[in-house]
């Protein structure tokens, strides 16, 4: 078998790659649905209805996509510079910790200042957390994948300690949760009824900003250069280490905002189940988007729909909800494959 690059990749072929990946993932999961004894068309119809079947469902899907847009952006920026930040989960909680620390009464500002302030603090916290792995990578060549993964566990334990100990809300009737974000800091809801909140707008704006930065600015150029060919970037005068650190700060910051948005927008207070793995799902989002910041939005909405829809589906036809997680995992692998086949062709001869 020989794999060789295509002479040119048409835009159509490139943009169809994630579509093929999604189709392949749906087919693979259909096997599991069949095993569960459900009719495949019915199950997928239920999934679709659960995600988009009513205005409530749509609002729910969009709400759930907010953290995924942030973590998806975080991953796509980092991966673009070949900095493998697998720690968006931890950075999300770092952002949530910052929102809780500053937003539960320590500082009170009018809402138009309080909300940006919390977002900024969350971003700084997320970035600060990633500072450890990135400096270890640039200065000591310690692999960032393992350090960011390990930090996820450490941060969760810190959160657990804080909300069971010093930050525990005395009003929570024994549940381990932190105090509520003060009213000035709560992200307003966008529509009457439903939980869709201001975080969605922040997410869209961030995606746009990241896209503009990557495409039109010197900093974006340098991030791409470093990711594609760090040695050539260095030769042309780009400070590779500085660029990687900057990329990590942006990446960690975006993931941190996800934590602020979930705490101050959706839940209102910090708990240990704030994120059911949004940081990890962000990897699937970024891969489906082929690291394109604008494409992160539809990719996040799609995976969010899978989660929201599969809840409805599993209630109706008795399929374990883990089907959604399986689909996320499969889609990461499928998109890797389909993107490759859009860029390479296979000949069965050496």
């Amino acid at each position: 078998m020989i794999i060789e690059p295509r002479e040119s990749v048409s835009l159509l072929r490139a943009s169809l790659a994630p579509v093929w990946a999604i189709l392949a993932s749906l087919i693979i999961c259909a096997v599991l649905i069949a095993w569960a004894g459900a009719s495949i068309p019915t199950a997928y119809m239920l999934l679709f209805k659960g995600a988009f079947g009513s205005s409530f469902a749509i609002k729910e899907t969009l709400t759930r996509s907010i953290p995924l847009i942030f973590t998806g952006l975080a991953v796509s920026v980092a991966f673009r510079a070949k900095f493998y930040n697998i720690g968006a989960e931890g950075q999300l909680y770092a952002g949530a910790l910052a929102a809780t620390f500053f937003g539960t009464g320590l500082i009170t500002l009018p809402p138009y200042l309080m909300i940006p302030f919390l977002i900024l603090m969350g971003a700084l916290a997320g970035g600060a957390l990633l500072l450890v792995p990135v400096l270890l990578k640039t200065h000591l060549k310690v692999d960032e994948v393992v350090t960011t993964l390990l930090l996820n566990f450490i941060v969760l334990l810190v959160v657990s300690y804080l909300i069971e100990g010093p930050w525990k809300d005395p009003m929570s009737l024994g549940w381990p949760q932190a105090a509520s974000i003060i009213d000035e800091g709560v992200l307003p809801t966008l529509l009457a009824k439903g939980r869709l909140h201001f975080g969605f707008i922040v997410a869209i704006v961030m995606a746009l900003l990241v896209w503009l930065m990557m495409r039109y600015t010197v900093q974006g150029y340098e991030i791409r250069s470093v990711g594609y060919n760090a040695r050539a970037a260095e030769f042309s005068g780009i400070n590779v280490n500085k660029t990687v650190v900057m990329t990590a700060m942006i990446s960690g910051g975006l993931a941190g905002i996800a934590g602020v948005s979930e705490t101050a927008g959706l839940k209102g207070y910090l708990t240990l189940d704030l994120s059911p793995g949004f940081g990890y799902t962000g990897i699937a989002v970024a891969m489906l988007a082929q690291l394109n910041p604008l494409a992160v939005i539809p990719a996040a909405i799609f995976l969010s729909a899978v989660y929201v829809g599969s809840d409805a589906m599993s209630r109706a036809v008795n399929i374990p909800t883990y089907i959604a997680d399986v689909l996320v995992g499969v889609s990461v692998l499928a998109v890797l494959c389909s993107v490759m086949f859009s860029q390479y062709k296979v000949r069965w001869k050496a």
Partner: protein
Amino acid sequence: MSELFDILLTAGFWAATIRIVSPLIFGTLGELICERAGVLNLGIEGIMTVGAMSGWMWVYQGGGLWGGVLFAAFVGATFGLLHAIFTVHLGLSQHVTGIGITLFASSLSYFVYRMLLPDATTPPKIVPFQSIEIPWLSDLPIIGEALFSQSALTYLALLTVPLVWYVLFRTPVGLAVRMSGENPVAVEAQGINVLAIRTGAVMVGSALMAIGGAFITMSWFDAFYFGMINGRGWICVALVIFASWQPGKALLGALLFAGLEAMQVRAQISVGSFIPYQFFLMLPYVMSIVAMIIIARKTKYPQALLVPFRRGERV
């Protein structure tokens, strides 16, 4: 502090250390074999999960214990094959593939568990591996209990260390594996199929990881819980670096970590009143990072780690 030293002198501490070290040994050696062949396997966390689930499930469904171990190994090797198809044959990103395998394998484990046991509220139990007392030796003070009254899987883990060392450093296939991790073109130029060597190494390594997972549900505990691997796979990846890709050092590193874990369980009782338990639980993760920092400067990576090999590709 003297309480901590007292712990070191109890037989229970050493017995627990040796018990806890088994999954780390399997996982670390499995990862080490993959990386020696030039393939980073970040699927480890998921493969340990799927091993833990499938081995346990085999026994719960009426199979034998050793059959369960074999079944776990088989499932692990299958996921290893998937990883190898992506990273070795298609040359895709080893980082992303590994994370994808982990997401896929763990979610599939939970899905299958829920499918087969939809109504289980408290996790059902199996009869796990029992400890085997080795005559005479198990009567020795401290080490008797620590080393010679463990379960068969623990003995197997300890035996795997010299076995992996021997195969890697004293047999032709081991040389081919190491060479694949250093310079795959050199392997190809000697008439050996690099893709086959790497695929085999990843499958064997993944089988070991899965046995490590199975140990947890079939020897250490007797049930399968969600999230029970809890980062052990990632710790194994750190341990491989800490061990500089040497099986002997991997054993030492794993013992260090197991000792730490056994210590923290006991220390919680003595000093837990003023140090929250979360900080004890954090220790292995923090130590993993510290271990990588300590070793970072002098470590000698397999030179072709992360480098895909494409046959007949024009350079």
